[in-house]
């Protein structure tokens, strides 16, 4: 990819917004991840944080930007440099989800609206491999790509005030997991016992942008069993290295 595909915009006094073509694609995600790794590796930019979006990367600088053009030139050089950064390991994580009606409180409604049987919805949802594009909205909330078109369901007109932590849901063209109790307007189809955000852990969120997720259907009994194992710190998540 060449520089001309990217735009650089000043984002207030302390940030620069870099934008790719406005589409959701693995190619753009990989380009963003590589650029981010180069910026972190180079260490010649004093930044506080990097925020990823579907087609953007925002750099929050430590200090007010005095010479925007100069910073952009520096970024362009980093972007085009053939720097060999040590590639991070990306994983595919197996996430157990219980699609029982006890948790999948909107399954019946979306089944009626879509003419899909509940078991077909579950089959479609567990078939795809979902790419993590970035994490936002709430600590540990994954923005996933790869939902089957047949499972595109509009958000609920009236959001619920309290969606349970671990709820697996579909909102429009996206699917995701609520990492904590929160308000939310997505259609809830199941629940995972896995913690996507635990502040007490050294790495509060075990996944990262560029990783993949696969949902596996489990029974209510298995859900309770895994939930107990997690509580007792005995549960081991299954993961496969993607870039081996």
């Amino acid at each position: 990819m060449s520089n001309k595909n990217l735009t650089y915009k000043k984002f207030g006094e302390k940030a620069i917004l870099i934008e790719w073509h406005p589409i959701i694609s693995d190619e753009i995600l990989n380009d963003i991840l590589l650029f981010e790794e180069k910026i972190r590796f180079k260490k010649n930019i004093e930044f506080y944080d990097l925020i990823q979006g579907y087609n953007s990367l925002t750099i929050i600088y430590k200090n007010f930007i005095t010479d925007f053009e100069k910073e952009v030139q520096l970024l362009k050089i980093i972007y085009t440099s053939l720097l060999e950064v040590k590639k991070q390991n990306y994983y595919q994580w197996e996430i157990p989800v219980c699609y029982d009606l006890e948790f999948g409180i909107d399954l019946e409604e979306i089944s009626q609206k879509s003419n899909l049987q509940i078991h077909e919805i579950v089959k479609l949802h567990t078939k795809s491999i979902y790419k993590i594009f970035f994490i936002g909205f709430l600590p540990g909330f994954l923005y996933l790509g790869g939902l089957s078109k047949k499972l595109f369901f509009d958000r609920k007109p009236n959001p619920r005030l309290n969606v349970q932590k671990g709820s697996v849901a579909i909102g429009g063209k996206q699917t995701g997991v609520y990492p904590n109790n929160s308000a939310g307007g997505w259609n809830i189809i199941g629940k995972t016992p896995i913690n996507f955000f635990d502040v007490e852990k050294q790495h509060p969120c075990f996944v990262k942008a560029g990783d993949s997720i696969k949902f596996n259907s489990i029974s209510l009994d298995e859900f309770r069993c895994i939930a107990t194992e997690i509580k007792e710190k005995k549960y081991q998540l299954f993961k496969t290295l993607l870039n081996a």
Partner: protein
Amino acid sequence: MLKVLKSGFYTTIQDKGRVGFASKGIPISGAMDSYSADLANSILNNSLNDAVIEITLGACQFQFFEPVVIAISGGDFSPKVNNHRIQLNKRIYIEKNSILSFGKVNYGVRCYVAVKDGFQSEVKLKSRSFYPNITKDFIIRKNDEIPYKSFTNNLNTSKLSVKVNKNHFESEVLECYKGSEFDLLNSSQHQKITKQTFTISNDNNRMGYKLNEVVANDLNQILTSAVLAGTVQLTPSGKLIVLMRDCQVTGGYPRILQLTEASVNKLAQKTTNTSLQFSIVGI
């Protein structure tokens, strides 16, 4: 240790916030009016990252169980120590068992209580700033105990207080830059945004301030991308939201303006029904 006798309307502990965790979706947080928080810390020769108590519209009461030096900056809520009115922006020596209380609101919305070397509450992900599901609680409650280091040395006998420009609390004009989606707006929308007086709705808090007035909006949502404190979003209903310190790291509404850091601090001193105008100072 300080004990909370009255917790007030919305009281939290804040420092410079939680930076470096955006990739996990963790908001930055930090003092809403960082200018005033910095001032309180500076008066005590503290590090600017030392944790302060952020008080919203007074109504708090604290008891100090060890001697310490404090400074209060930001809004004036008639602070008193043992019922004697004290000045803002000045070193105040606090004796053991003293009670600090706040009464009538004279101006401003948020004030900051700094102690020498900062409050020593729990550090979570490199910050003491309160945030739901990250710190133990997201607000300070009655009977909470907040640790700090006892301090008995004389810092300096200076009786002077720092003068603060009232403009910080009174000016209705918020300086801003064009946001990344500003150019998608048409000229009548530009006009409306830069000429209209907006008012703050009662939906305003540490996450963001929703404004009352409507700007006709035909823009599509954008692919979810970064937002910052001071980002002004145009929602599908045509209402504007100015994001503040506890805002999410990403959003999907067009970003039409970006407030300067100074204007974010100014807005933090405003609340429901206050008027404001946006003034574009640069790209």
